[in-house]
Structures are given as C-alpha cells and as structure tokens.
C-alpha cells in the first residue's frame, strides 16, 4: 500500500500573529513553525495504516528548504521518504497542481491532508488534488478503515456525521478525531537522519488567487465590567441595549 501525506508548514498555535510591513506575510521573527496540526493527525493515521499493511509512506511539501526540520520530524515518526517541491505555495490551487505534477504516475492508494491549514484556513488542497488526479475526495474525515480495496470512513457533515465507503484510490482531509498525533522516539530520530528528502522543481503553475493584503482584527472597545452583585444587569443590557436576547 502506497500512502502519501501532504504536509503544510504553519506557525505554532500559540503564536501571536503580527503582520509584516508590506502586509503580505507575517513577521516570522521569533515564530516557531510546526507541521500544520491537522496534518499531524493525518500523519498518525497514515502511520497506523502503513504499519498495519506493511505499506510505504511518502511525505510531500510545497515550499522552500526551511521546512526541513518538519519533514525530518515526519521521517522520525516513521515516514519512509520525503519530497519537497521547490516552489512558493502561493495559493491552494498551485499547491495542489505542484503535488499532482510531482507524483504523476505514482498511483498512491491513499492520500491524506489536514482538513485545513491553520494559516489560511482554506480547506481546498485535498479536493482540488482529487479533481486533478481524477480520484474521489472525501473531506473532514474522522475515521478511516481499510479492508482490501474498500475504504470505510466517517466524515463530518453539517449537524452530524456520515459513514461512507469507497473502492480504489482515495484522497481524504483529516479532522483531528482521525488519530492522536504521534511523538517521535529517539530511534526514529536517529533513523530519520539518513532517510531521503528528494527535491523536485516547480511545474511553473500560475496561481488563481492572489493575496492583496493581511490586516489585524479591529480592536474591540474596552470591556464594560459589571459587578457580580448586579449580574442580572448584564441580561438587561443584552436585552434592551444590544437587542440580542
């Protein structure tokens, strides 16, 4: 079984986001970059399946060489090899297109991504990649089992969940319920040092969407404090002044 994990690099969840002067990116000063948390859940499930079926797990990333520690961590957790497409991840479509080109003819049985990256929150790459590879795509997946050629899944839908099955190759996006992230052990870390990270050149795709500028949320007006003894007044304010209840 050939499995592919699409790995995205994002700022750590505790990062206070400050935008750069040109408003095109974040100020990376002092920011710790990590594997996108949802991708970490996807990686854990990919590892379960790799171990169960004695499969082969490849990790792919679109971006520059600064991602190496993140790819090494994936290798330390147990991925067999990593591929980096040496191109700027300008929009979701270009990422999906770069991955599709890089894995052309590889015929993966299962491809996983996280349900969204925690930077641009697009939830786009997996279904775009499914379309480009002409294979089914199922997103927001919370359970995934494989039996022979059949994959059985559970996914989130509005107001509930759905259980599905599909035969043949499949791409999914992982919700965090899919699996608990793994932590690399010392043996894995040692082994990861000699595992290959292959670099592939860009396919020259043009993005469909362009970032114009980033902005910080408006500052809320300062908090109006209400004394505990007058807590009932809060309800009164929400009712008469804010007209919310």
């Amino acid at each position: 079984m050939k499995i592919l994990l699409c790995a995205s690099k994002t700022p750590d969840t505790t990062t206070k986001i400050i935008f750069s002067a040109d408003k095109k990116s974040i100020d990376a000063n002092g920011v710790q970059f990590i594997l996108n948390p949802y991708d970490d859940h996807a990686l854990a499930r990919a590892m379960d399946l790799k171990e169960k079926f004695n499969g082969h797990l490849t990790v792919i990333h679109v971006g520059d060489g600064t991602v190496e520690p993140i790819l090494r961590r994936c290798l330390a957790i147990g991925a067999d090899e990593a591929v980096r497409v040496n191109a700027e991840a300008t929009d979701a479509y270009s990422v999906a297109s770069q991955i599709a080109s890089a894995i052309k003819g590889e015929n993966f049985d299962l491809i996983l991504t996280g349900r969204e990256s925690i930077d641009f929150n697009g939830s786009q790459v997996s279904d775009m990649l499914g379309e480009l590879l002409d294979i089914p795509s199922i997103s927001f997946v919370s359970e995934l089992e494989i039996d022979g050629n059949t994959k059985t899944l559970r996914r989130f839908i509005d107001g509930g969940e759905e259980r599905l099955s599909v035969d043949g190759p499949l791409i999914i996006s992982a919700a965090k319920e899919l699996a608990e992230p793994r932590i690399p052990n010392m043996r894995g870390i040692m082994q990861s040092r000699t595992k290959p990270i292959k670099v592939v050149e860009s396919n020259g795709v043009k993005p469909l969407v362009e970032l114009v500028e980033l902005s910080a949320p408006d500052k809320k007006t300062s908090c109006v404090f209400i004394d505990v003894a007058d807590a009932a007044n809060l309800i009164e304010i929400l009712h008469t002044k804010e007209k919310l209840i």
Partner: protein
Amino acid sequence: MSVLFFAENIEGKFHKSVFEALTFASDTAAKLNTSVVAVSLGTVDAEELKKLSGYGANKVLNVADAKFNTFNSALYASALQQAIEKEGADLVIMSSTFNAKSLAPRLSAKISAGLVTNVIELPDTNNGFTVKKPVYSGKGFGLFSINTDKKIVTVAINSYHVVGGKDGNVAIEDWTPQVNDSDLNIKVLETKRQKGKISLPEAEIVVSGGRGMKGPENWGMIEELADILGAATACSKPVADVGWRPHSEHVGQTGLTISPDLYIAVGISGAIQHLAGVSGSKVIVAINKDPEAPFFKAANYGIVGDAFEVLPKLIEAAKKIKAHA
C-alpha cells in the same frame, strides 16, 4: 457577470445558512447589475424551492435526480460545471458548509476558477474582484484578489444578514445534467444528524464553558442558560480534551470557528487559540474569577466572579426577560 448560486439542501430542506449566502449572492448580483440563478441538487419539494426566490433567486434550476440525494464532491462538481455552461455564469456562490468546502475546491480545479472560502463581506468589484476572509484561524483577515474569468466564493456561516421577502414567484426549471457513472463510486452507508439541537456554527447565541466549570456535572447551568436564550452550547479545548464535553463542541483554533451575534464565555481564560475561534463574534461576554484573564481584553462585557455565583443570577434574569417577551 451572471451569478450561479448553489442552494444546498439538508434532507430536502434549506437552512438559514443557505438563505444567508443567497442574500449575499443577490446583493453581489445587484452590484454587478446581473441576476442570480439558484441550482438545487436532489429531491426538494416545490414549496421549499419557492423559498429561494424569496431570498433573491431570479430563477431556480431544479435537479430532482435522486442520485443527488447524497453528497459526492465529484458528482456535484460535474453538475455545477454543466449548470455554469448552461447559464453562462462566471461567478459561483455557496454557503461555507462542510459539503461546500469539499465541492467548491473540486469545482475550482475542474474549471480553473479562483476560489476563496469563508468570505465575510460582499466582494469589492471596483477594481478587479477582491474578497475578505479570516486567516490565521481568526487572528487576522486577508484580502484576496480572484484574477480568473470564472470565480467561486463560499460565504462564511453567520457572517451576512438574511433579507427575505423578495418576489416569491420566479420560474422553477426542471433540469437533468449528465451523470458520469465513474462519479458514483462513493456509497453513503449511514447519516446521523442531531435532531432538535441548534447547530453550533449556525447559532446566533452561544454559551460556552471552560475549566472554571470544575467538572462535567456542573454543565446543567450552562445548558439551562443556553436553553432559555435559545443558544447552542460550546466549550474550550481543555474541557473537550479531558472528556467533560464532546469534541464537536470545542471552539478555537483547532476546533470550530464560530461567529455568533453573542458569545458568552464562562470560566474560560481566553487563551490565544480559543480567542482565534470566537473573535468573529459580534458581542462577547466573559465571566471569570481571575480579573487578569485574557478574555476580558477581547470581551465587550465582563463579570469578574465565580461562575457558580454568576450563572444562577443570569439564569434567573434571563427567565424573567423571556417570561415578558
């Protein structure tokens, strides 16, 4: 530039988020001096379909084929591609539901249309086509320009006000797109939806509890206040992690991002990851024992006090208000 709107039904009914996104589509079409064609996929009765015109659809394409009664991103994308060609549409708009976030990217790659998901304001069409969406899980906003001829936008749930009452008598055209058998390879085995509960992403009011609630046995008060206010309940990550509440209630950076009109946070300190998930709320109320809790910096109203002292007072006051309503 004509607008195609995907009207997604849930078990044959359109929900508030559809009317919200349709109002958005109708207002966008007005800016562009064009009209809105709504497409409905799967079995929906005539009375329900008529509702779409009330929210601004100028025409409804009704695909009654039962093959569309369960969602399949490839099947749906192919139908929408055919609808776009049939209607000569250049802009596709839909609500940011789970299904749409699977369908829209698939369609985008299929027709090379630039896509922006979770848009919160009408597009700026004065100079090109730019749209705004939250980024960094609510820690900021991004303005994006879609430069392709065909464009797709999904509208963030609870970000746009519903305006109904428009002419309710437009044409409903029955239409049958071609179906590729190879797109029918996904089988839906079972669908489970919580009945009678307010869906958290759609809720206008949310009452949320954190570790300050001390244990799952104390959630009765959160639920009681939510019931009285017609609110959904939510929780912080630590609370979901220790299993006091289900993960489906977890709001924050790695949980749900919500933007209700009113968010009441009880016993939640307001870690940056939690705030990211709720910063789109119009009014935030924080209740916390600790006057230094970061939530107070993000809140519009605050009560420094013990949840167990404050909640009963709020419940009592809310009961009185509702009794008079």
